[in-house]
């Protein structure tokens, strides 16, 4: 039973990490048109292997160092002499792929959680008879 709780803990940590990743991805998409916005990147790491906590957690969030997109729009208030201004460096296709991957991994974790729960229920059914 203890192992089942461990399994559920690992699965829920995975769901937590993936939903944090989805949140960051959504923020990136929301700011796709914000001038000067840099894309944020989530990292995953082991919680604390020394203390035998092998669950996953999100580490530091980094900002992408990729070049900002130069957009030509002389009417824009931030446009310079040449009519260009710095947009964001968010690539919508990358963000959508990232969001979809987060969703799939979340579902995988959810299935694992469900399986562990079913196994626990079957165990308790044995006692109940």
């Amino acid at each position: 039973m203890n192992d089942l709780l461990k399994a559920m803990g690992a699965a829920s940590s995975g769901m937590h990490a993936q939903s944090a990743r989805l949140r960051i991805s959504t923020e990136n998409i929301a700011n796709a048109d914000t001038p000067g916005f840099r894309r944020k990147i989530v990292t995953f790491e082991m919680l604390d292997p020394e203390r035998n906590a092998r669950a996953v957690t999100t580490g530091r969030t980094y900002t992408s160092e990729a070049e900002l997109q130069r957009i030509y729009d002389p009417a824009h208030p931030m446009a310079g002499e040449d009519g260009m201004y710095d947009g964001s460096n968010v690539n919508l296709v990358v963000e959508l792929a990232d969001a979809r991957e987060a969703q799939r991994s979340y579902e995988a974790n959810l299935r694992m959680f469900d399986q562990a729960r079913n196994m626990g229920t079957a165990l308790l059914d044995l006692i109940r008879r």
Partner: protein
Amino acid sequence: MDLNLEILRAARGLAAYATARHAVIAENVAHADTPGYRARDLTDFSDSFRSRGDLPFAMKATREGHIVTSPPRHSADVVERALFGAEAPNGNNVSIEDQMMRAVESQRQHSMALAVYRKSLDIIRTTLARP
């Protein structure tokens, strides 16, 4: 009457093994996107199951009335095991599909163990029932 409870011990060992394995697989799935993570699994149940005796740690029963317990019946080791060729460029070698197969396998092992346990109890019950 000779109650042969070895089958119950084996069933209990398999159930404990299946839940421990499930915990390891859940960790793998949780780390499906962690860079550098290596997928792990338990060694096979048949290699690790010991049917009787030579248990390393057991509670001592020095008096009558002490409860005799037996430790978990499996001693499977956690080893790195992954699908060949599943390694991603960031060093992670968890394949979700492979982990799903393993999870289903451990779930089947668990339900089989419980079914055997339940059936054995039924047989014992039938044997002890009044005519």
